[in-house]
């Protein structure tokens, strides 16, 4: 059967493709090169096609399961589809204004929905969470609470621009700066952890297919070194 044969080929080639594209992307750490550009373009193409295909499939499932059942629903579905198509007038200079119709609907809906609870969800609850007792159950909690209160107040004062940061405000703004630096440092640490975790995950993926990993790595590295060598021979030393 053709499908079985195809499934077999894909299963065999899958690890090779994975290793190839991963190494192409990683070759950027050496320098920008055609292998990287090829993998980047392929990735973008596949990701876009996947998203479009997946969402069209969802649209079709909605049509089958809900919207094709009554004539009113068919009309509503067609109307929604037509309004949705207006997004593509983004690419027309003449009819650009039509694109504003779905845009305004989307923005209006989103803002309306999120504003409904935003004040409580992302403002009042957060303020309430900083109203903490200065003396807590354990000495560590007490210290933690005192630090939170000091840091919140000083950072708030730091962004109070009506008064010049002189006199007592000079000291509070210095504490605020240290507070923010500590915060950014912690955020940087978290970022490093994420990046490393992603790299380790892909390295583990590569190691699970050793023959493909090693042979593809040799090919990519060899072509990069040879192209560098040829370029150096063409350009005299010291030339810009």
């Amino acid at each position, binding site marked *: 059967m053709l499908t079985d044969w195809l499934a077999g080929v894909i299963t065999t080639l899958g690890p090779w493709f994975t290793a190839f594209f991963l190494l192409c992307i990683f070759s950027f750490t050496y320098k920008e090169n055609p292998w990287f550009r090829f993998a980047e373009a392929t990735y973008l193409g596949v990701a876009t096609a996947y998203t479009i295909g997946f969402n069209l499939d969802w649209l079709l499932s909605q049509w089958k399961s809900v919207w094709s059942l009554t004539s009113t629903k068919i009309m509503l579905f067609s109307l929604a589809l037509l309004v949705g198509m207006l997004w593509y007038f983004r690419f027309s200079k003449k009819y650009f204004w039509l694109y504003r119709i779905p845009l305004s609907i989307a923005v209006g809906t989103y803002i309306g929905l999120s504003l409904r609870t935003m004040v409580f*969800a992302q403002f009042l609850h957060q303020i309430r969470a900083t109203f903490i007792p200065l003396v807590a159950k354990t000495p560590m909690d007490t210290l933690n609470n005192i630090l939170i209160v000091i840091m919140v107040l000083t950072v708030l004062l730091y962004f109070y621009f009506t008064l010049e940061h002189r006199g007592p405000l000079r000291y509070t703004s210095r504490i605020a700066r240290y507070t923010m630096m500590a915060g950014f440092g*912690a955020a940087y640490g978290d970022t490093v952890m994420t990046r490393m975790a992603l790299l*380790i995950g892909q390295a583990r993926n590569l190691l699970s297919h050793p023959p493909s990993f090693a042979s593809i790595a040799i090919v990519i590295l060899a072509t990069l070194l040879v192209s560098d060598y040829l370029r150096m021979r063409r350009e005299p030393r010291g030339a810009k």
Partner: protein
Amino acid sequence: MTEMEERRGKGFWERLQEVDSRIIYLLLWIVILWPLITPLGLPISISTGTREYFQVIEDLKPGSRVILSYDLSFAGLPELGPMTIATLHHLLKKDIKVYICAFWDSGADIAADNIRALEPEKNYGKVYGKDYIHMGYNPMREVGMAQFASDVYKAFPVDYIYKRPLETYEMMKGVQSAKDFDLLISVQSGTPGNPEWVRQWITPYGIKYIIGILGVSVPEVAPYYNAGQVKAFLAGLRSAAEYELLAGRRGAALAQQDPLSTTHILVILFVVIGNIGYFFTRARPRRS
């Protein structure tokens, strides 16, 4: 002057601050591959946050209804994949109803893959549609979440696996809106994610809510945790490994802890080296 000649003209401490990125990458590969090939077995302690996450699931009463939302992409899988599969394993081990959904397109496929990998029928004695269900994908982001909260069947008319109307499944009896669920778990790598769930589910309905996030998202989520909106969260591969230990399923996160530690040591080392170089160049007058 070429780049090489320019570098040669600099002093030792100045050069220490400008290590070639290719050398750092090479060292990075070495400290990743070496512990992956020969594991070091560094000890792992379990943090309070991970215990809280574990306990929220552990405290669920029999028959509870839990939503597990896959709000992640393939790019986030190396970090979020292990905690997602460990969470699903933990949920399937218990006598509760699991409702799987996704607000990211790739999330629906990842969920289907996880179900295939765990084989709930064979390994946990669970029945599709009775004990767990994959409700599929909703592309409408925050609007879809609001729709899901007010009417489950409008947000997910058919299930993902068999494309049958959701109301035909046994476990959907008595389920209409957000109020009918006991816990919401979202494993997420961006938008729509935590703020959207809090706005549409947690604030209006007061559902218990825990999440799994990328390490990079911790500063964004911490205020929600302090405010009590997020009851517990797992952050990154490290928390995932701790959770794997607690949930009793050793997986990819545990296997990746040694390289995670060695890479961190390397980064710390370079930060220290860079700072030493900076202080020494600052302490003495610059070369003309």
